[in-house]
C-alpha cells in the first residue's frame, strides 16, 4: 500500500531529527553551568524519549517498547520534585 510506504519514510525522517535533538540536549546536560540546567535538560530528554519510544513501538510493531514510556515520564517528574525538595528544604521526605 502506498500510504504505509510514505508513513515509514515519515517515521524514518522523524527518527533522524529526534536523534539530532537528543544529541543537542545531551550536550547541554553535560555542559550545564549549574545543576538546575542539567536537571532541565535531562527532564526534556526523558519526556522526548518517552514520545520517541511510543513512535518506535509503532514502527517496530511491538507493544513492549511503548509500555515503558509511562514509567519514563513519571521518573522525570520524580527527579524534578526530589531536586526541589532537596534544594529548598535540605532533605527529601515523603
Amino acid at each position, binding site marked *: 500500500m502506498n500510504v504505509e510506504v510514505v*508513513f515509514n519514510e515519515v517515521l524514518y525522517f522523524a527518527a533522524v531529527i529526534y536523534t539530532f*535533538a537528543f544529541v543537542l540536549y545531551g550536550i547541554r546536560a553535560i555542559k550545564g553551568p549549574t545543576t538546575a540546567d542539567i536537571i532541565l*535538560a535531562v527532564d526534556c530528554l526523558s*519526556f*522526548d524519549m518517552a514520545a520517541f519510544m*511510543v513512535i518506535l513501538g509503532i514502527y517496530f*510493531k511491538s*507493544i513492549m517498547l511503548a509500555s515503558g514510556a509511562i514509567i519514563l515520564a513519571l521518573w522525570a517528574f520524580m527527579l524534578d520534585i526530589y531536586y526541589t525538595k532537596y534544594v529548598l528544604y535540605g532533605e527529601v521526605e515523603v
Partner: protein
Amino acid sequence: MIIEDIIFTIGSVAILLGAVYDLIAAIGLLRFGDFYMRTHAATIGTVGGAVLPVFGAGLVALVYHPLGAQRFFMAGIAFTVGVLILLIAPTGTHSIVSAVYFGRIGKKPRLVVDQLEEDLPKRKDVVELVREHEGLPSEGEEREFVFRRMVR
C-alpha cells in the same frame, strides 16, 4: 475508508511537526543565555515536542492495521502518556524554577525590575511575624510566664 486516511494523515503530520518542534527546542536550550530563558525552550520541547507527536502516534495507531488487535492497546498507552506529560511537565518546570529562584542557585541575570524580590518579606519582618504568630512577647516587653502547651 476515507475517514481512516484522514486520521492517518493528521497523525503523520503531527509526528513530523513534533520532531521539528523538538529540534527547535534543542537548539534553543543550547543557545540561550541564562536559566530563565532556557525554561522557555524547555516548554516548547515538552509540550510541542512530546505531547503533540504522542497524540499523533495515538491517532495513527488507532487506524494502523498491520498492528493487528494490539493497536487499541497502543493507542491507549499513547493517549495516557500524552495526558501524563501534559499534566507533569509544567508542574515540574515550575518547581525547578521556584527552587532556583528561592534557593539562589547560580548567578542571577541582570534585571530591570524584580517585583517578586520587592514583595518578599524581609528578615526583620519575618521575625516579627513569627513572634505575633507564636504569641511571644516582643523585645521591649517583660516576658510573662504561661504554660502555652497546657493552655492549648
